[in-house]
């Protein structure tokens, strides 16, 4: 019994210690962001590996999600003779929820895990300690550019996801199933509000970008510097990002769309 309590206590202490380390780490990394702006090439390189290389999976998934949404919604909506509402239904669900959330989950799978593995291996091969020896701050040089690149890329990727998704549902709805093209767009425009829906979706994706990249770089920086440690850290990145994104999504949705 005592042993059980002790292990519970140790687990709790470990958890809070890690949380505290993570927050301190985030503050340090944020403080390093101004120095990144002085060296934009570092940021451009990271934007390439974090942002540009994620475009493919984001666009393909966005297209298929939009097409499937269009197909499924159409079947249900025709039952009520409301197939004209296909546009607003697809646009709202993509812009408000699916765009930011799915893009963040894909982003953590594609870019977050790569960040963790990269930083973890840098730590395991003692490149980070090497930098410190040469009086280069690894947080400013390695972490901050990656964090900033993630925060910039994520909203752009989410916007692409939603836009491509809407185009996908347009192809299926208007091209294959015969919804009226004018009704598709005009209904969408009358139902989707810029501030209420698109702006809030943008804020959501920005928050997810911060959360996902922060978890990814922290897991890498905090990884046990062995092969197994890095592999565990990579797994943890994806799992924890999924939890954090879905949890914060609920909170954000409740704050943004809860009360009317």
């Amino acid at each position, binding site marked *: 019994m005592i042993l059980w309590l002790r292990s519970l206590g140790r687990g709790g202490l470990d958890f809070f210690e890690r949380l505290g380390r993570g927050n301190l780490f985030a503050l340090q990394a944020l403080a390093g962001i101004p120095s990144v702006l002085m060296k934009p*090439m570092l940021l*451009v*390189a990271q*934007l*390439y590996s974090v*942002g*540009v290389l994620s*475009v493919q999976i984001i666009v393909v998934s966005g297209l298929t999600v939009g097409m499937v949404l269009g197909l499924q919604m159409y079947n249900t909506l025709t039952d*009520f003779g*409301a197939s004209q509402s296909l546009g607003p239904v697809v*646009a709202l669900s993509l*812009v408000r929820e699916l765009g930011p959330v799915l893009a963040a989950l894909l982003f953590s799978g594609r870019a977050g895990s790569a960040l963790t593995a990269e930083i973890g291996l840098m730590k395991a091969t003692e490149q980070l300690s090497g930098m410190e020896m040469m009086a280069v701050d690894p947080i400013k040089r390695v972490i901050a550019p990656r964090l900033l690149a993630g925060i*910039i*890329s994520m*909203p*752009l*990727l989410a*916007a*692409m996801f*939603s*836009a*491509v998704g*809407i185009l996908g549902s347009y192809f299926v709805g208007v091209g294959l199933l015969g919804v009226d093209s004018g009704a598709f*767009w005009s209904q*969408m*425009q*009358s139902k*989707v*509000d*810029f501030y209420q*829906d*698109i702006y809030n979706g*943008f804020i959501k994706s920005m928050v997810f970008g911060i959360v996902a990249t922060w978890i990814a770089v922290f897991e890498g920086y905090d990884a046990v510097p062995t092969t197994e440690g890095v592999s565990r850290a990579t797994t943890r990145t994806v799992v924890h990002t999924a939890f954090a994104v879905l949890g914060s999504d609920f909170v954000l949705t409740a704050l943004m769309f809860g009360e009317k």
Partner: protein
Amino acid sequence: MVSKHGLEIWVGLFVAAGLAALLMLAMKVSNMSAFADDQGYRVQARFENIGGLKIRSPVSMAGVRVGRVADIAFDAKTYEAVVTLRIAEKYNTLPKDTSASIFTAGVLGENYVGLEAGAQDSYLKDGDTIKLTQSAVVLENLIGQFLFNKAQEGKAPEGKK
């Protein structure tokens, strides 16, 4: 590894594509493009019942959208709904005795305000009030009336006996 120039070009393309997607969402998907016709003159109309009318519902005349509902308030003295309509500046030749009614698009569609031109020579100006109004048709009331009439019909033959 991509060269430095290639890197910058790809990142530039990426940022441009992201911004283009945002722009498309703003212009094509949302009502951002409709913001421009937010200017216009305001006219008030009083209704006994506005049904499901909401702020930003369309105001149309002869089926063409000429404005939007800008504000909905309740007058606690007369127990009427005060609806402020914002009508685009280019349609400033509506007669003073124009009448406003609340219609429903389709059976379950959204409510909108329909205007019907009168015959007077003077035109509606900013701050005017539309006198002739017709309330929304509330489906529940209609059903209630219908059921009541049915019940009356059912009773009548019995009364004859």
